[in-house]
């Protein structure tokens, strides 16, 4: 399997990262060498193996669905690059 430039641009679109045209060639080369390395896994037959979904020997705890904090709007908004009153401001989405 090899990744071409178009495929990489598509994946970058999915990941919401704009890729600099000048860097696409290097990126293609690097990603292909990484995938060549990753694909060693195809040597292994894993048909009868259960996928490992948790390394803990315990099931995830459940907790009561109740509010444990709150009234921290100021704190939450504090780091926002752009805000107005109690809102995060983003570029216009709907005309």
């Amino acid at each position, binding site marked *: 399997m090899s990744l071409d430039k178009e495929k990489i641009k598509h994946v970058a679109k999915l990941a919401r990262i704009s890729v600099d045209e000048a860097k696409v060639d290097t990126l293609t080369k690097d990603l292909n060498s990484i995938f060549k390395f*990753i694909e060693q896994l195809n040597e292994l037959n894993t048909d009868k193996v*259960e996928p490992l979904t948790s*390394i803990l020997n315990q099931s995830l705890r459940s907790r009561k669905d109740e509010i444990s904090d709150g009234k921290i709007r100021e704190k939450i908004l504090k*780091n926002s690059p752009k805000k107005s009153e109690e809102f*995060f401001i983003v*570029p216009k989405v709907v005309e």
Partner: protein
Amino acid sequence: MSDITNQSLSEILENVKSKKISSLELTQAYIKNIENAKKLNAFITTTFDQALENAKKFDNKPNELLLHGIPLAVKDLFCTENIKTTAGSKILNNFIPSYESTVTKNLWNCGAFLLGKLNCDEFAMGSSNETSFFGNVINPVGDQLVPGGSSGGSSSALAANLTPATIGTDTGGSIRQPASFTGTVGLKPTYGLCSRWGIVAFASSLDQAGPMTKTVSDCAIMLEAMSGFDEKDSTSINKKKETYSKNLKDNIKGLKIGIPKEYRVDNMPKEIDELWEKGKKILKNLGVQLIDISLPHTKYALPTYYIVAPAEASSNLARYDGVRYGHRSQKGKDLIEMYENTRSEGFGDEVKRRILIGTYVLSSGYYDAYYLKAQKVRQLIKKDFDDNFTKVDAILTPSTPSSAFKIGEKKNDPVSMYLNDIFTVPVNLAGLPALSLPAGIDKQGHPLGLQLIGKALDEQKILNIGYAFEKNCCYKNEIKKWWS
């Protein structure tokens, strides 16, 4: 008193407890060292004023806490309340958390206080600290040498006496490899022993915080202080807190230690092999029984890791969108373009590479071929360890396939950089604890480490073996100060 900062944490604690030195004098000594070590670039942020205030406060209090009056610098991946936390990334360059990570809070509750935030690879993705937005960190072992990564600021600061002990995080070797490169002790605890709450996430099923120290006793003290159940982390293990430092003992006679044949890899320098032999001999003389074992899927650990870790990273890093916190691009005509430009400007090349790998292996049509396949192989890797831990108490391997390399040497070849973690990654995939111990030097005089892998939650045993090893290793890490 001779230079206090040369001492181990245990010795410093004794001196503070017996009032031979005050916390204020101690803090001042570290501040002086840090100011003289700017060349190493180990710090992203320093909190000197706050540290001096804290030191004075502790000097007036009765000394009854485990880390009473000890200043500590920590990796800049731990969120610290009202102190900038960057994860080594431009995208978090202006992020000031309104909360404290559980692990650092545990340290502060034990009487320690913050001295500063340490440089690291961006989002902990790297093995040389060269991916940090804040520049390379220098290994005090030698100018132009990398300190390892991703906890490179931590290993450099510790080895250069800029902090008496420190903490890092380890997703694929990020504590143990830098410890090995700087001749220090590093422990990656069992997955779930230390809370992940408030640590900037990289790969959530692998990330684990742990101590980096000068000695094994120090390591036991730090682990005791930082570990413990936390209901804010859904994968935190709910068990009684252990007193690792009190229970430390050097009688390891009769223990069985496995030697896995798969860790003798092609092109491994002879010196690493010799170091491993030396380690075996020391343990044998201590009455340990060495047993040859096989971990047949070892070679597949790195390829598995480079599917699992980027997949989890691509999900975790989706939160950096320029809306709620962090860098936001000024370019772009709509919301989508704002996202794309923000992430393109905010992330460095290695982080972008891993997000793209992760996005691809999770994307429609490729999930089974990559991600599901990796989860299955991860099962086989874990089973290798499970099978062997019915026969042995611990496993001894080298920590890394080489000593510290030069800055720039591996930067343009991602796969050769990844190979650095070949001995450390399997442990993260299996969720096990592992300790890297300084064990010798190569012919260039660069430190080399050996790794002890334990059963899940068996930290005490590997600490005991390390403690006995350290006493009998007759290797002392001596770094000449050239940077100030």
